[in-house]
């Protein structure tokens, strides 16, 4: 496996010297996400395997090419989990891809995002150097947090080769409650509940129905159910289908917008149907809307909008960055990948 890293460094150096682009790829499950990127494929799926897993330390170290499903089943065998509940979007999705994409699932507002659970990353930068940042311990403030910077950087700063995570025990009980209410009330109520000591682990509102998932100790879930009311429903498949975007809302042949706003922001008045997750913090919109109007609505709300799937991409997939932020992005890109070979243009054109 050391050979893999050595070869990788060599290949990166060679590509850098030639300024020849590399398209870093796990399984391609998230090829739909982000801007189009050209380049020779750098397949990471062969660099797979769990490097270390100490359930009692709550720490897992894994090679980037390891299948996400394999990581999750290993954790499940110890009754633990990746708390950020990453979407797979494909059977062979890799853990490296999940981190590079930086996407978190339904549990995000109540547990944390991908970056919150990244303890360390090993990367190969554009100079072909094998670097390690962070570590395998839960608290670590030595050096700038480059390991967390890798989460969501879409492979544009370096090739992630290994990642250490903080993992958590899997809650022993889970239940879903359903409520008939409009979007405004659903958002208000989800925020109100989140301000109480209740074991919330996900919410989703669509078409007049709010679903709330509770996860925790038996006693906590039982007590919350009686406090919150609503209708107890069997939703064992629902949350996974939602995470994987297999529900009818997500499978229409239309553009899918991902609008991230402060959780308590009022309903957005947009021309197309919405599905609201994250206690109001994540609003999906399905429809070929005018990018400018979606983005200005998101900005007014204090958030940003991504053209997540499909649609007319001429206005860019990701929300335009303000000038000072773009300046820092360019300089960081330049620092990590001076020849500009990693996933060029996948995020922004620098």
């Amino acid at each position, binding site marked *: 496996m050391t050979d893999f890293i050595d070869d990788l460094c060599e290949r990166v150096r060679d590509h850098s010297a030639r300024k020849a682009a590399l398209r870093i790829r796990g399984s391609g499950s998230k090829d739909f996400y982000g801007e189009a990127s050209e380049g020779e494929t750098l397949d990471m799926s062969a660099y797979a395997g769990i490097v270390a897993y100490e359930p009692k*330390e709550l720490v897992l170290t894994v090679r980037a090419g390891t299948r996400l499903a394999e990581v999750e089943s290993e954790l499940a065998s110890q009754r633990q989990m990746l708390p950020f509940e990453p979407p797979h979007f494909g059977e062979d999705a890799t853990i490296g891809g999940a981190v590079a994409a930086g996407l978190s699932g339904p549990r995000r507002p109540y547990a944390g995002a991908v970056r919150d659970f990244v303890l360390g990353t090993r990367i190969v930068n554009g100079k072909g150097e094998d670097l390690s940042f962070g570590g395998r311990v839960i608290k670590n*403030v*030595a050096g700038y947090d480059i390991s967390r*910077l890798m989460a969501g950087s879409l492979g544009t700063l370096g090739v992630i080769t290994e990642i250490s995570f903080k993992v958590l025990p*899997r809650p022993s009980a889970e239940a879903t409650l359903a409520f008939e209410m409009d979007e405004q009330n659903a958002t208000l109520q989800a925020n109100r509940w989140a301000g109480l*000591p209740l074991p919330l682990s996900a919410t989703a509102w669509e078409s007049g129905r709010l679903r709330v998932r509770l996860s925790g*100790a038996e006693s906590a879930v039982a007590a919350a159910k009686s406090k919150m009311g609503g209708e107890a429903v069997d939703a064992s498949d629902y949350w996974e289908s939602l995470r994987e975007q297999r529900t009818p809302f997500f499978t229409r042949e239309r553009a899918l917008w991902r609008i991230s706003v402060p959780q308590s922001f009022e309903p957005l008045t947009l021309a197309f149907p919405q599905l609201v997750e994250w206690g109001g913090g994540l609003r999906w919109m399905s429809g070929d809307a005018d990018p400018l109007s979606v983005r200005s609505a998101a900005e007014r709300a204090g958030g940003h909008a991504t053209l997540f799937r499909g649609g007319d991409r001429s206005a860019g997939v990701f929300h335009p960055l303000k000038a000072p932020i773009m300046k820092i992005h360019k300089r960081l890109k330049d620092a990590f990948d001076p020849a500009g070979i990693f996933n060029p243009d996948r995020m922004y054109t620098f």
Partner: protein
Amino acid sequence: MAASMGDRLHPASSIGLSAANVRSRALESLRAIRPRMTVIADEEGLKPFETDAFIAHRETPMLAVLPESEDQVRAIVKACRRLGIPVVTRGAGTGISGGAIPHRDGVLLVLSKMNRILDVDLPGRRATVEPGVRNLQVTEAVAADGLFYAPDPSSQSICSIGGNVAENAGGVHCLKYGLTIHNLLAVRAIDADGDAIATGEGALDAPGYDLLALLTGSEGNLGVITQATVRLVATPERTETLLAAFSSVREAAEAVGETIGAGIVPAAMEMMDRVVIEACERCMGLGFPRDAEALLLVEVDGGAEEAHEALVKVSGILERSGATEVRVAADEAERARLWKSRKGAFTALASILPDYYTIDGTIPRRCLPQVLEYVYELAAQYGLVVGNVFHAGDGNIHPCIFYDANKPGELERGEELGGRILERCVELGGTITGEHGVGIEKLRQMCVQFRAPEIAAFHDVKRAFDPDGILNPGKAVPSLKRCAEWGGTHVHGGHVPRPEIPRF
């Protein structure tokens, strides 16, 4: 260590201005900023700022300035950039790694006057505050509404949010509630160009690279934090506190692993060793078994039912793991008494040995017993008393090395001992700092933990925010040259500055 400052900076003096000239031009520039703000230039006025809570180093800044708005901060940074003058940002000055020690040729940017809570969104559970707002002040503002700000460094009654962000501060409840980074929604920071870097307005993520993660814990090197939007969380309905005595550190450490292995994430798990226990017995007579080698303080919280269920489970686990005694707090008064063993012992010890030096390594928890053995061996070898407190849940160790600054050489011996403990932490796969930051204190150990290309990557990141290296130069990341040549320089002693600040 002072010699390491400004390694990368080429101050105005290098372009032909004399020191006095630079100072008068800086003073002129700062006084020209409108609206006017407090600029301190006299020696007497500068004296209180010569150190933070780091033990072993003092420096008088060239000037100190106390802005009241972000616009003034921008103007200050721009003026300093133009003149090539270092800018060291200071919050409440409670940092213990020396991150806010002034630069003798630089401006000390004191943010204590930027202390307003700008907005509280109760339904949305977030507060937007200026950097000088005290940590505890945030909780005080929302406690009546059943919310709190979770990170609780031990100096929380006086330390400020800006400093917490700059250091990615932790506390005793990190295992469950996370570090500062886990409780932030957005920050605004002024980079060395004087540009405002806003990472968001309160949504759960932002487009592009995660600059929030990068700025958090950057120790004033990447930007001046001018605003933070923090997450507020629900106050637990009930908190249960247990204190267990063990006849070996190994058993206590295993009890921690067993608890977590059983799927329980306690709010706090604090371990204390026999040095602390003996001090407790001497000063407070808590009546623990004579053979107790370790005390484990555990807190579980949440809804009433949840906390109760966890309490029952945890006490069972503690007993099965070999606890010789388990005490459960029946009420708030008893809870405070149990915490006394954690908080009170060092006060007692410190009254006998006036000075102490706190280490902040993190190790994989399974290594606790062997690290402790190593610490005892070293303590004997160096002839110093070392008391050990651990945030055991997350493997963050805080050996406190006691010494008498009046005895020549004792501080230096203590520092050397501390350095060796940190190096062992790295060997075991841990880190030299879990929550206190590198500052100037652990620059040497950075060279142990990271290899040259990694250190170079840190400098690359710094250049992205601070091309000329004016922000807190010489702190947090050592120069490669220093790492290669490190030798000779050493700091000289003094008493603990600001002894009222808790340090662990």
